[in-house]
């Protein structure tokens, strides 16, 4: 798999997701600086977590205007999968690749802990290896993860099955108590109409290695590696 991880000034989960991608595919992703205007051939583009531009003004706002984002938007329109984790999700909403916005957590506090998520749809590249309704444990670590969209957009997302992850309790019940940030309808992750752009606040890469206490995130990377092997074509070195 040729994956590209975009590095913005202030990204800080770029190395983490690169390790998960390498562990799953046997091959390190390219790290692409935000100031570039061209993307290398990529079967997957990842916008990592962190604090691009310090989260100043609004999380993701300034990164959405980085030179590389024009190329990312173009590739996304061509169907190249784009995964935005945490700050990456915020950037995806700011560029308009995903609808809605991520607002300050209802508690107003930064929150870092493991949460349970219900996999709402397995019809995406990312969630194929999970069972529909499966409960997975991923960590969250964010200050602005409170998903908002207007009622029409929410109806559309629900109607088209584009809500991919929802915060829930250990038994899969979607409750207010299980919602760490006040997100509408406990939304933790959504995808684009073609299912190829996924944004989620929780960090699958943080529980993708048994040493760290869990591996629920690993199947996502593994599935991407298996599905996307060699599709970019231009560069066929070492596939595992």
């Amino acid at each position: 798999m040729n994956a590209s991880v975009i590095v913005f000034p202030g990204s800080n989960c770029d190395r983490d997701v690169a390790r998960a991608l390498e562990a799953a595919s046997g091959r390190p992703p390219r790290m692409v600086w935000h100031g570039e205007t061209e993307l290398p051939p990529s079967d997957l583009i990842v916008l990592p977590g962190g604090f691009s531009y310090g989260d100043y003004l609004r999380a993701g706002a300034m990164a959405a205007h980085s030179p590389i984002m024009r190329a990312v938007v173009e590739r996304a329109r061509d169907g190249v999968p784009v995964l935005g984790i945490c700050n990456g999700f915020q950037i995806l909403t700011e560029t308009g690749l995903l609808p809605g916005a991520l607002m300050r957590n209802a508690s107003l506090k930064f929150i870092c802990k493991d949460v349970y998520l219900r996999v709402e749809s397995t019809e995406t590249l990312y969630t194929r290896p999970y069972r529909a309704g499966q409960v997975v444990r991923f960590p969250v670590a964010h200050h602005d993860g409170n998903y908002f969209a207007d009622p029409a957009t929410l109806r559309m997302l629900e109607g088209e099955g584009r809500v991919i992850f929802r915060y829930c309790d250990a038994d899969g019940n979607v409750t207010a108590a299980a919602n760490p940030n006040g997100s509408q309808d406990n939304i933790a992750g959504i995808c684009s109409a073609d299912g190829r752009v996924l944004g989620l606040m929780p960090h699958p890469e943080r529980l993708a290695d048994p040493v760290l206490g869990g591996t629920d995130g690993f199947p996502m990377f593994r599935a991407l590696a298996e599905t996307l092997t060699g599709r970019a074509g231009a560069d066929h070195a070492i596939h595992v």
Partner: protein
Amino acid sequence: MTATTSQEITPDLIAEHGLKPDEAERMVEILGRQPTPTELGIFSVMWSEHCSYKSSRVWLKTLPTEGPQVIQGPGENAGVVDIGDGDAVVFKMESHNHPSFIEPYQGAATGVGGIMRDVFTMGARPVANLNALRFGAPEHPKTRHLLSGVVEGIGGYGNCTGVPTVGGEVNFDARYNNNILVNAMCVGTARADKIFYSAARGAGHSVVYVGSKTGRDGIHGATMASAEFDDDSAEKRPTVQVGDPFTEKLLIEACLELMEGDAIIAIQDMGAAGLTSSSVEMADKGGVGIRLDLDRVPQRESGMNAYEMMLSESQERMLMVLRPGADDKAEAIFRKWGLDFAVIGETTESGRIEIWHKGAQEADIPVRALSAGAPEYQRPWTAREAPAVVRAADVPAPDSLLGALKALMAGPHLCSRRWVWEQYDHMVMTNTVQRPGGDAAVIRVGDWSSRKAVALACDVTPRYCAADPETGGAQAVAETWRNLTAVGAQPLAITNCLNFGNPERPEIMGEIARCVTGMGRAAKALSFPVVSGNVSLYNETNGVAIPPTPAIGGVGLLPDLERMATIALKPDDEVLILLGE
């Protein structure tokens, strides 16, 4: 000499700068004339308790600082310890007490920023932060505000820079009501053969300023940190520094990128006394002089004079001495990361610090006078009378043991600290093998295939130190040791932050002397040397001093994660064993 900053040097002005009359005499003697205002400012910060350790130095010298594992002990920006396979850990703890009381969010945030710079200055990537916090009584009207501000500030800074905050401690005691303690520790990892030091060896090399621009931030913070509080210092307070963690993150990446090559001769962060302490320390350690041209300093505000620039505490700045011919390459890296870069002077053979601004010489001082020549006091001390021993038999038994246990667990001293550490990103970097909540945090060193880790803990029980400083000091070291061994680590070395009241009072000096003695005794007995640390004195308000609080931060090595232990009880039918007396 002519100086653009002109102000008459009166005894009042000298006193305001925290210099005692005999210290002022010594300054005039060294210069052979009256100082300029800029020189007075420089002497004042360099001879402050904070920079010179004038009250504590004689005692610090008694601490054990050596061992086969020690690569660099006290005397550099941070301590460096060998962890095998060519790897090293670099760590230090530092206080940001007074600023955090004045503005809890920014005070704590900039404390984290400062300690991280001490670590990455040495070529290490920061991999974990810890913090030891003391607040006043839980019911004191300021406590809630201070606690939430400090925690948010530590999180705000650490989270943004992408360094996990993995441990620490929180205590409450009415004697901290007006003097909270915020001690931040940072741990980094580096290759043992790629450690960077602050000695600016060789004359004629460029002195380079990088990072953020200089403003009038916190001018006189360094001397302020050494002066006792009184009721109106909240009013007289100078501008506090505001942290910019985003810039810090860029600075980490830019410095580490430059450090991959061999461009740097010496590097030093601009800590509490900014341009003054960084240039003096680099010159002093390298046995050279430094000439700075302040017109070239990147400035955020207009009309700053030499005094202000030399004393500014603007954050996220570093000073470097570069090898000949390396300027362009270095500049390209810092520009790429969007940071200021300016050659602001050069090293000289004069052994003097010479400051020029707008064509006038503002300061000309022999470097040694500011460092080795700083005052050192053998302050008188007395041992406080030990409190009466409370015999267990004299304490009425609780009605119900279970009730007592519940009360303890729910009380502010022992209740869960989850509320604190859930506001810290403690997992970023995907190396946090043991998260907060156990005896020590465990951080993997290396990539995902690595099985090597370090264990980190920080401890002190001020109430023990108040009851018996020597035993309390020893106990703090021993407790840190136990917490590291409890996760299966081999303890390696410690850092510390000595927080006390006014050392000019013999009973406080007695606490310092005896705590340090106890720490040294335990450290020697356990081969657990002290490799770095920091001293914060004058933590008292209206004559009420904090309890003696020598915070200890320890680092241990787990060569193989298979051997790691955790606090959780495992299956139902296991046997519990109590060890020790």
